[in-house]
């Protein structure tokens, strides 16, 4: 049932609390939510810089995450190291296409897409790019909700290292796994610290 009525009033002076979803009046500077009492956002520039800092950390971590091995297989004394892309290639050649596509999407495309989305949002708030605000809000929503799915590869590596844990053959997570997990962590922090008020500007 479509029941709600859209208001024609501009939502310039109103803001949604991210914790309790109450509608608040938008003021300059710090706002405390009228319902839950939590600080909604600090100053806009603080949010901008913090998002940028977390994003840069994540981008820096992206390189070791991809160049260092994420999976080390020790088979009768012979060590074989696999990076993320290498692991996907092995899966593709073995014929398990759906899994290869899932991992390709989750651990290669999702982080890059998140970088591009956040950079676009930051640039468009700074230089006033002409595009629809609703699209930007949707873009931000996608960025927020899709972020944690990149952890799939890290979890798979740890599960495999528990299961393949024999004296003859052993799977060990590599340094790339830690870097990757940290990268996902920082992209999530970056998305969380992005102030939606920046879009309105």
């Amino acid at each position, binding site marked *: *049932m*479509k*029941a*709600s*009525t*859209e*208001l024609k009033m501009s*939502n310039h002076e*109103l*803001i*949604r609390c*991210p*914790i*309790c*979803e*109450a*509608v*608040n*009046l938008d003021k300059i500077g710090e706002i*405390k939510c*009228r*319902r*839950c*009492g939590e600080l909604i956002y600090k100053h806009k520039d603080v949010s901008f810089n913090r998002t940028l800092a977390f994003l840069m950390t994540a981008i820096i971590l992206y390189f070791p995450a991809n160049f260092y091995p994420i999976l080390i297989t020790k088979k009768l004394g012979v060590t074989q190291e696999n990076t993320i892309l290498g692991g996907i290639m092995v899966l593709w050649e*073995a014929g398990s296409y*759906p*899994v290869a596509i*899932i*991992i390709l999407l989750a651990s290669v495309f999702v982080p890059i897409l998140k970088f591009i989305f956040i950079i676009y949002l930051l640039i468009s708030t700074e230089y006033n790019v002409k595009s629809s*605000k*609703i699209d930007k*809000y*949707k873009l931000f*929503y996608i960025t927020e909700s899709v972020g*944690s*799915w990149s*952890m*799939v590869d*890290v*979890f*798979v590596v*740890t*599960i*495999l*290292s*528990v*299961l*393949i*844990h*024999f004296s003859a053959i052993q799977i*060990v*997570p590599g340094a790339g*796994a*830690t870097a990757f*997990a*940290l990268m996902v*962590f920082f992209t*999530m922090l970056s998305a*969380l610290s992005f102030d939606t008020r920046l*879009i309105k500007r």
Partner: protein
Amino acid sequence: MKKHKLDNLIICKRCHTLHKKIKLHRNTKALCKHCGSVIYRNHHNIIETTLALSISAIIALMVAFSFTIMTININGIYQELNLTALFVVIFEQHFYLMGIMLGFLIFLFPLAILVSIILLLTLMHFRRSGYLVKRLLILTAKLLPWSMIDIFFISILVSMVKLFDYAQIEIGVAFVAFILLLVLDIIINKQMRFNELWRYYESIYGVKNEQS
């Protein structure tokens, strides 16, 4: 604009369109005019249903965390996967940072979320201690994006597919419990809207005038 007037407004989560709230019929929902996502719904016993669902979810979670998820069999050698073995192996291999991260993401945060949901709904049901309910509501909202139990389950499936060629896989009790937990988690997340819980909170404990 006055305070009570702001309460009649609601902003869509996805596209930030401003809407005016209207009274809904029983068991109907209001959709966003722009993107079509559900904004709020009329649910006559949201506290009791969500409480029941989250209690069964926490039972499923305890089963999923304490029993075997799966056993693999490679040429007669057996190896079990359960959550304790996972952490033991990771710390044995000196991946401390990852072990701590995993411990928070797949164990502590999901547990904390479910415990605080159960606690706050029980308190709301008995109309006790408003301050604690408020803190718990804020805590749950903050923790919610950090629970990765669903992603962990997908990873279990992916690693099963990877091992399919080399080993025989036996599914354990915890695997079934994981499926149950996931289904319950999706239903709880779909049903429990923070906006409505806060509205109930205000109607139960009364609104304090804290605004400066």
